[in-house]
């Protein structure tokens, strides 16, 4: 303890509580858990009421596209975790590269989602469409939940992407660095939450057919 670098001692004098900052981020994530949790409850009840129709409606989704997006998000979670390890090891450029990759994966996810939704719209499947109104009630509910839940999730992907771009700027400017990177950790936590939500959305909408 006696051989602290002067900078480290100065940092110790300045009040900092990184664990507290991370705990605050976790508390925020719990509000997100309740937000999506409410929708998962609605899904569960309607699935229970309309099991057969939910099965049929799920066949209209492309499992391949869903699987590709799952792989993209899981990989983006890896790159953001690697970026934290990189900055911790003092590798600024490597950290910036990993955050940039994460943003690119987010864009790829959104592009897939865009084409997937466009495809549905072309086939007349969008909220309130004449085609959808004529389907059985359970299928209408399924697609309403599909658009609301994946839409809210996509909104989170967009927000996460903006947060990661801010983190990238901070890394490049040096305000996120080897001795101070709790903001990157918080941004990473948000990004992982987006991944976790998708881990449940993927089987519930794409695989239960």
């Amino acid at each position, binding site marked *: 303890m006696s051989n602290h670098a002067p900078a480290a001692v100065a940092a110790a004098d300045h009040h900092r509580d*990184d664990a507290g900052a991370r705990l605050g981020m*976790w508390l925020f994530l719990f509000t997100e*858990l309740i937000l999506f949790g409410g929708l998962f*409850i609605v899904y569960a009840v309607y699935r229970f009421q309309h099991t057969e129709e939910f099965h049929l409606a799920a066949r209209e989704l492309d499992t391949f596209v869903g699987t590709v997006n799952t792989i993209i998000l899981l*990989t983006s979670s890896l790159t953001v975790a690697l970026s934290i390890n990189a900055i911790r090891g003092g590798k600024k450029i490597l950290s910036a590269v990993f955050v940039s990759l994460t943003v690119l994966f987010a864009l790829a996810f959104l592009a897939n989602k865009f084409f997937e939704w466009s495809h549905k719209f072309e086939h007349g499947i969008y909220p309130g469409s004449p085609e959808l109104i004529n389907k059985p009630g359970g299928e209408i509910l399924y697609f309403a939940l599909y658009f609301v839940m994946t839409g809210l999730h996509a909104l989170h992907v967009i927000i996460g992407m903006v947060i990661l771009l801010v983190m990238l700027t901070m890394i490049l400017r040096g305000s996120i660095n080897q001795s101070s990177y709790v903001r990157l950790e918080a941004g990473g936590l948000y990004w992982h939450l987006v991944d976790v939500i998708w*881990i449940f959305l993927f*089987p519930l909408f794409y*695989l*239960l057919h």
Partner: protein
Amino acid sequence: MGSPVQPHGQSEAHGASNAKLVLIWCGLLALTGLTVALSGIDLGRWIVLSALSIATVKTLLVVNVFMHLKYEERVFRIFVIVATLTLAIFIALTFFDYAFH
């Protein structure tokens, strides 16, 4: 809690090594493959249980390793358990209400 060279209050979670992160990522991809493969088999009503179990395992991997939960102080785990239990109570009460309506 922290290593002796870290001044008080700074980030001190040790986290996983790069190799471990990549290993967990491989595990997540394998579980994704498994859940997709199982969806092609007619498991009847077990399909929901198997899909949700695999999703839960994937979530535990992400939360513990990628989100560093297992390297954090104990209070983090207590918070996560309380939040998850709260959601579980919401779900249980909703279904009780629904079942006995």
